[in-house]
C-alpha cells in the first residue's frame, strides 16, 4: 500500500521524497527511484488520482503549443520573420502563416512587420530541438501599435489573467486601457498615460501578492481607490488572452 509522505499542495524541493510504494505514478517534475517518488524540481505538489506532479513556481518561459504570446521582431529573413519571445529560443513566423493577403514575390517583408515591432502571435509547433513556429492568422492575433510593454514572471501569468480572465478585465474596466497578456510573461498596455501607470502598478501588485487568497476583492478595492467607482461589466467577449 503506497502512501503520500508530504501533504498535497505544499512546496517540495529537488530530491524530496514525495510518495512511497508503487500505487502512485510520477508525472511532470517527479521521478521514481526504487520504491519512492522523488521531486525532480522545485514546485507545488499536486496529486491527480494516482499521478503525482509538480507545478513550477519559478523558471523561465518554455514555449508550448497553442500558447498566445507577445514577441518582438528581431530579424527579417527571406521567407519570414524571427521573433524574440522572452525565452532561450527565438521563434519563426513564415510568410504563409503571417497573413492571408497576397504577398508579391520579392516584396520587402518589412512593410508587414518591421524590426522592433511587437506582435501577438500563437505558437503552432515546437520541435524537440525547440524550433518554434508562430502564426498571426486568427482572432486577436495582430501587430501592436503604441502602448507599452511590461514583463512579469511567466509563472504568475495565470494569476494576472484570473479565472476566465476576471482579473485582467477588472483592470481593463477600471483603467479603460487595452491590455493583452502573453503566456510568455509579456504584457501590452495601451490607454491614457496616467491610466497605463495605474494598470502597471496593479499588475505589479498582483505579481507580488499572487499567493494570497481573496486577491480579486483586494484588487477591486485598490483600483477603486485609484480610479474611483467603475462599473463592473461582465466581459462581453472571450478575450484575446485565453
Amino acid at each position: 500500500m503506497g502512501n503520500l509522505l508530504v501533504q498535497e499542495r505544499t512546496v517540495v524541493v529537488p530530491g524530496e521524497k514525495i510518495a512511497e510504494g508503487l500505487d502512485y505514478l510520477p508525472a511532470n517534475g517527479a521521478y521514481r527511484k526504487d520504491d519512492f517518488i522523488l521531486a525532480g524540481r522545485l514546485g507545488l505538489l499536486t496529486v491527480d488520482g494516482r499521478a503525482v506532479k509538480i507545478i513550477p513556481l519559478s523558471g523561465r518561459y518554455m514555449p508550448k503549443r497553442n500558447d498566445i504570446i507577445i514577441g518582438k521582431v528581431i530579424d527579417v529573413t527571406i521567407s519570414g520573420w524571427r521573433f524574440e519571445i522572452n525565452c532561450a529560443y527565438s521563434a519563426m513566423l513564415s510568410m504563409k502563416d503571417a497573413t492571408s493577403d497576397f504577398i508579391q514575390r520579392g516584396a520587402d517583408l518589412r512593410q508587414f512587420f518591421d524590426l522592433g515591432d511587437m506582435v501577438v502571435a500563437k505558437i503552432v509547433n515546437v520541435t524537440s530541438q525547440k524550433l518554434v513556429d508562430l502564426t498571426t492568422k486568427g482572432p486577436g492575433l495582430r501587430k501592436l501599435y503604441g502602448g507599452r510593454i511590461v514583463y512579469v514572471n511567466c509563472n504568475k501569468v495565470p494569476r494576472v489573467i484570473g479565472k476566465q480572465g476576471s482579473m485582467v478585465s477588472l483592470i481593463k474596466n477600471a483603467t479603460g486601457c487595452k491590455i493583452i497578456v502573453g503566456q510568455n510573461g509579456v504584457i501590452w498596455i495601451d490607454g491614457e498615460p496616467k491610466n497605463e501607470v495605474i494598470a502597471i502598478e496593479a499588475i505589479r501588485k498582483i505579481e507580488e501578492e499572487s499567493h494570497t487568497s481573496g486577491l480579486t476583492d483586494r484588487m477591486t478595492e485598490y483600483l477603486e481607490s485609484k480610479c474611483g467607482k467603475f462599473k463592473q461589466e461582465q466581459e462581453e467577449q472571450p478575450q484575446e488572452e485565453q
Partner: protein
Amino acid sequence: MAYTKRVDGRKQKEIRPITAQAGVIKNADGSAYFKIGNTVAYAAVYGPRELHPKFMQDPSTGILRCNYNMMPFAGMGNRVRPGQNRRAKEISMVTEKALLPVVDLKEFPNAVVDVFIELPQTDAGSRCAGICAASIALADAGIPMKDLVSAVSVGTVDGTIIVDLDYMEEAYDASVADIPIAYIPSTDELSLLQMDGEITKDTLLEALELGKQACREIIEIQKKALKEKYLVSGEENE
C-alpha cells in the same frame, strides 16, 4: 601533542554555524546566499538562455557554465586579484562537475544555464560554500534537478579527523590533510573529491563517512532556505 582541541573550540565533527537564504538577487532567475562560519558565498543563476559563442552549443542538451570568483577584499587582508586565474578556473570546473550529475538540461538543447558564484569573504571551504549556494540557486531558478548537492571539507590535523576545516586549521603547523567533498544524498554518491596533504586509506574512509554525515545536515538547511522563500506561495489557490 595530538590536535585534541580545535582552534575555535568546536567539537571534532561539528560544522561551523550556517545561514542560508534563497532568492537574494532579484534580477537573477534564481539566487542564494550561503554563509558557513566566516565564509560567505552568493550564487546567481541565469537561464536557460541562448548560448553564445555559437560553437559551444550542444544540440543534444543544454550546458551548465559555472564561474567562481573571489572578491578583491575576500582574503585574509591581502588583495586577491579578481577574475580568472588558474585556481578560479579549476574551482569553476570542479563546481560544474559537482553539480552536473543532478541537473537535467536535456529539455534545453543549445541553451546554457549560467551560475555565478561570488565570495565576498572567505575563511577556507570556499568551493564547498560555493557549491552549496549554487545548488540552492539552481533549484530556486526552477531548473529540473534530481536532488540538491551539499558540500563540506573533511580532513586530518596532526592525525585527528575533523570536519569543516577553517583557515587556521588548514594552515596548522603539523601534517594536515584537507579534503573537500560534494555529496548527493538520494544516490549516496560523491560528486567532488579533492585532496591536499597526506592521509592513510582507513582514515580517509572514516573521514568521508563523517563528511557525508555533515552533508546530510547541510542539505536540511538548504531545503529549509528554499521552503522559507516559497512558504507563502504554497498557499496559492488557483
